């Protein structure tokens, strides 16, 4: 009886959480629904970054560029070409982000170790600068693409903040399922292998570079999807959503939530989004200062994280040995 409960416990919790998520809009104001949607979107962006960051050990500080590719793709198609269908738009965002990630990865993977981090930073900012300068990517006096609206699903729906939130929730759940599938698949374990012991992996016959590239492309593509959703939700996409600051924030979400864990990055995305929002509500001028202090404190406290990981590990082992015995 106990064993059965243990096996059922996790999926049950998840189902309850998701169900709760669906019912949430009824408890929130329109403004809060927007915030919740935003939080989900960044949760997705962080979770997809973690595919490269936590799984492959590729500390990319340039993922906002891919976020931007997704957002700009749908933005331009919608505003300049009048395409309204969600399905076409998202497909375009996926293709665009996949291509961009491949190019990004090809260049960035030329650098090793800490260099890689620097290069991703610079590449990300390069994309942001291009967004700032290239007139094709500007539709208004501000240097951004404005006038984006919620797309059509072809089901005759009428969007409200609440229903869009639920729609995004559905996509978020789907994305987490996809990510989980990748992580637990042979591909996922090979990717983790390249992070843990690169030399051994090569000796075991794995082309380490290829797996790293795959991780980056998968990660970037999914981040692009999140970016597309962001564009829909925010109504615009600007270079600041693409640049160093945005990329850094994504990485911080992953780190704070816990890289390489099951849902850590996703939760980190939600937490940081809520944090930044409420901090600026409290005191708009000093909000970055507060956030900065939180980050520094988290970094300092992290030396004890090792012990926390041990505790979690031992709990996980009890679970595994329960199942295996």
């Amino acid at each position, binding site marked *: 009886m106990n064993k059965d409960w243990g096996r059922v416990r996790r999926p049950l919790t998840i189902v309850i959480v998701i169900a709760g998520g669906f019912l949430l809009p009824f408890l929130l104001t329109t403004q809060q629904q927007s915030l919740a949607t935003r939080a989900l979107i960044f949760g997705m962006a962080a979770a997809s970054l973690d595919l490269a960051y936590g799984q492959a050990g590729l500390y990319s500080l340039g993922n906002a560029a891919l976020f931007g590719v997704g957002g700009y793709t749908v933005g331009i198609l919608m505003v300049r070409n009048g395409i309204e269908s969600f399905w076409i738009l998202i497909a375009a965002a996926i293709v665009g982000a996949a291509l961009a990630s491949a190019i990004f990865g090809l260049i960035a993977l030329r650098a090793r170790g800490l260099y890689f981090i620097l290069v991703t930073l610079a590449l990300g900012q390069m994309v942001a600068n291009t967004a700032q300068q290239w007139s094709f990517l500007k539709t208004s006096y501000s240097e951004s693409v404005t006038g984006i609206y919620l797309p059509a699903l072809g089901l005759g729906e009428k969007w409200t903040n609440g229903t869009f939130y639920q729609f995004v929730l559905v996509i978020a759940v789907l994305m987490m399922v996809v990510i989980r599938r990748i992580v637990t698949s042979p591909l996922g374990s090979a990717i983790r*292998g390249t992070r843990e012991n690169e030399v051994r992996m090569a000796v075991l016959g*794995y082309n380490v570079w290829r797996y790293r590239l795959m991780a980056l492309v998968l990660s970037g593509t999914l981040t692009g999807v999140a970016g597309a959703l962001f564009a829909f939700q925010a109504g615009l996409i600007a270079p600041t959503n693409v640049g160093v600051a945005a990329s850094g924030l994504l990485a911080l979400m992953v780190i704070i939530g816990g890289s390489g864990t099951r849902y850590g990055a996703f939760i980190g995305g939600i937490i940081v989004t809520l944090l930044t929002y409420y901090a600026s509500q409290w005191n708009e001028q000093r909000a970055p200062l507060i956030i900065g202090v939180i980050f520094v404190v988290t970094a300092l406290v992290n030396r004890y994280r090792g012990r926390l990981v041990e505790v979690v590990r031992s709990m996980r082992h009890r679970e595994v040995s329960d199942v295996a015995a």
Partner: protein
Amino acid sequence: MSLLELNDVARSYGGVKAVDGVSLSLAPGEWIGIIGPNGAGKSTLFNIIGGQVSVSSGKVSLLGRDVTRLRPDQRYRAGISRSFQTSSLFPDLTVREQLTLACRQKSRWSVLRSWHSDKALAARVDHLLDVWNLGRHEGSSLPDEMSYGAQRRLELALAVSSEPKLLLLDEPNVGLTASECDDLRARIRELDPTTAVVFVAHDMAMVMGWSHRVLVMHQGKMVADDTPEAIAKNPFVEEVYLGAQ
């Protein structure tokens, strides 16, 4: 045809010649031990065969095929596998996961197939766990929860998982007792008889017991290549060792 051939292989670091014109030929199923004082170039030669280090000049061939420029993962596919002197394991993966990773490259895989459904793969992993005395229950352990001996066995299990044509063992007896060492030899003997084994070691008794041939290296050159008995009686070899000590 010979399994492995080295043709005048050399490797320099700046002005230092770590390996200076070594040639050798290895037949399938042969066991060769490489000995020599520290700094003789054994590890470098070893790494050249394994692909961890590139050559400055010379050629490495496997079954007639030039593998000199191949990366380690390409050499794996060609049939070369190796173990490391300090166990090179995956710190956060269980024993079963590590062996599965190792065995998987032998068979085809599909990205979306979860590894529980691949029965043949699981059976191979179980077999390896049994043969190397890693025990079914240990399948869930992480490396740092295992004894040193168990870690070494895992290290070797990883190396032989590909059923290689050429097995490179870097000081396989380090930290093992004499009986564990004999055990090891027995297990490797159980592999395909056409598998050739090249190993580096410092323990003379072990080298004598394990090898068909012994190669002696000194200052980057191969100074002797003979049967163990002949090498033991070779006065030059004695001098090389005593002189270096």
